[in-house]
């Protein structure tokens, strides 16, 4: 017996339903307002080259805690993922717990930024932002939350400037790049990074997009759009889909020299585990990291497998290390309804318990 039982009339009805949704969807699509990027009110407080440091407005009725929180996002994609829509915003959730939130927007590097190195980003830009916030608040140390690659940056920064960081939160941060299931690292190991950077200068966002889409090509470039048809008759869902679509393809180019060092030192040489990462004239040593750490990872993360993040546990000298496992994916940890209820309140609580000025 064949396990497929599709009658022509039922297939016709299915097709009718598909085209009806498509027709309705076109109307909703054309009626969609401009896709906004980031929803919580914020304003720039510091600029350096293409970097802009933003400070988020504290919601009415909330008194900000004395120790501000700096969010360090990845260079890949754009930071508005953390504030993507009104009811799906990590930043909004953090503000609600009383965090005084700052965020670094790296901007879009162009050819003139090709020579920026990891040292320039970490001991230059990040350090200047931290100093600015410390001086503004009259504090010796602030809290940092690093996201994905920004988490790796935050680990390097904190290990080199421990006295300026009170508490460190890392989210979906790759630490062990040889952990099983890390496809990106596996693919990158066979690449000639020097040849790629020497050829392209900056690494185009399109190349990164191709790499990410290649992780699940049939779902991410085919099935996703079929699934979208089911959402098309709901204007709000259309807008949310388009917002996410914009974020996925809003990929800044990567400053060539920074990409060169990050890809070689971490993806190819697993630098946090094996050592040998040098910024300026100093080697990164995670054992110099002593502050409290909250390490958050996603159990279904296809970009940064849980084991890649969990490796942090034994690498630092922190005596106050906590983990939070989220049952979702790399993006869901910011945008899912579950994350709004579980992740951000947990971060706020953890920080508030450790943030007496």
């Amino acid at each position, binding site marked *: 017996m*064949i*396990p*497929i*039982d*599709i009658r*022509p*009339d039922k*297939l*016709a009805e*299915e*097709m009718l339903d*598909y*085209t*009806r949704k498509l*027709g*309705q*969807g*076109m*109307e909703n*699509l*054309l*009626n969609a*307002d401009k896709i906004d990027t980031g929803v919580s009110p914020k*304003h*720039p*407080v*510091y*600029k*350096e080259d293409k970097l802009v440091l933003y*400070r988020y*407005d*504290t919601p009415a009725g909330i008194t900000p805690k004395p120790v501000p929180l700096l969010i360090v996002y990845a260079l890949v994609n754009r930071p508005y993922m953390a504030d993507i829509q009104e009811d799906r915003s990590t930043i909004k959730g953090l503000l609600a717990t009383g965090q*005084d939130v700052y965020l670094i927007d790296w901007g879009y590097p162009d*050819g003139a930024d*090709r*020579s920026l190195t990891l040292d*320039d980003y970490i001991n230059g830009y990040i350090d*200047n932002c931290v100093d600015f916030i410390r*001086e503004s608040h009259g504090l010796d140390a602030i809290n940092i939350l690093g996201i994905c690659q920004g988490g790796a940056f935050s680990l390097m920064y904190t290990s080199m400037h421990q006295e300026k960081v009170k508490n460190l939160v890392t989210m979906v941060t790759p630490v062990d790049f040889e952990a099983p*299931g890390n496809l990106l690292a*596996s*693919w990158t*190991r*066979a*690449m*000639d990074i020097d040849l790629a950077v020497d*050829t392209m200068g900056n690494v185009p966002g*399109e*190349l990164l997009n*191709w790499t990410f889409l290649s992780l*699940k*090509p*049939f*779902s991410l470039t*085919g*099935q996703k*759009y*079929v699934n*979208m*048809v089911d959402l098309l008759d709901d204007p709000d869902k259309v807008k949310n889909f388009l917002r996410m679509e914009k974020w996925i393809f809003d990929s800044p180019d990567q400053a060539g020299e920074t990409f060169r060092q990050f890809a070689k030192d971490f993806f190819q040489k697993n630098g946090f585990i094996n050592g040998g990462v040098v910024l300026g004239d100093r080697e990164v040593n995670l054992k110099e990291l002593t502050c409290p750490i909250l390490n958050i990872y996603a159990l279904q993360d296809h970009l940064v497998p849980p084991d890649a993040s969990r490796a942090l546990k034994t690498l630092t000298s922190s005596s106050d290390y906590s983990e939070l496992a989220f049952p979702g994916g790399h993006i869901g940890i910011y945008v899912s309804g579950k994350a709004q209820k579980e992740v951000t309140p947990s971060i706020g609580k953890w920080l508030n318990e450790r943030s007496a000025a």
Partner: protein
Amino acid sequence: MNNDSFFSNDWMETQRKYWENWMAMSRKAMGVAGGSPTAPWEAALDHWWKALSPAAPDASKQFMERMMDQGKAFFKMAETFLPGANGGVDGWSAFTKTLEDMQQGFRGSVDDGGNTLHRLMAFWELPYDNWQRMVSSMSPVPGDFLRNMPHGDMQGSVDRLLSAPGLGYHREEQAQYQALMRCSIDYQKALQDYLAFNSKLGLKAVERMRSYMQDLIQSGKTIDSARAIYDNWVGCCEAVYAEEVSTPHYAELHGKLVNTQMALKHRMAVMVDENLGAMNMPTRTEIRTLQDRLQETRRENKRMRRDLHALQQQVQTLLGGEAPKSLTSGLRTALIEGPDSKKSMAAKPVAAKPATK
């Protein structure tokens, strides 16, 4: 907002009538034949779009075409498995024949005029399609112009040609063109290996689908919608893909694909640079040298500002005065506010502030 009532009136009404008529014909055909006639589902969807798309606004056409492509893919899938397809053979034998045809399609041994199985095979070109789009975005030549270049038959003669030494005044130029040709051939070979790998995965995905169907039979369940077939096919493809791309063999293929692409681009860039130089125009190499020197100068400037700041602090302390507070003011291009002026400063425009130190 779009106030055009086109969608809610004419267009929606037209498509409704189109499908009502089409379904009536389909039901009538079933009654007359007393069975399940094979229907040109994909063609029907195509006709629907062709009939209606001229009236659709240009702004939505590209989006709709993407949706239509995916819609056709999953209705095509259903059509292929529909009882009565494959020359009227019914039951398990028809189903088996469909799977065998798919396998032959992946082996390249079936010629159906690009119709019956084309879209299923095209589905497995998604990874390549992504690559092609990425290459196009970085190249003045649209698409991947080397894909269809004959390779195997001409390999020997081309190798001989390329190994012939250049002579005389144009020796260097000839050597460069030979190197360019070698890079082209290397890339083409890597690309063909990559495509061949995907074809093998397609064969495995068909096997996975067969196995899945057998499990369904044993469990007594059936699939009763085009969408369910499509989703299961995507699931099989994605599962096989995930297994295979995590192997060292794929990492090697992936690496070669990227590396040979980069080598080819690099060779082209060298030749472009030489031509630019010959025309007394700045070359990319020169510009990169300037970029590197400029960035190094900026680093030195920032270091000196910090050293100067430290010295000023020491001098002020020795003199018993108040030490300069801000470490970052000499680095930033705009300082908007301090922590105590949050609300009032929110509306202030960003203004450049010259360095004062």
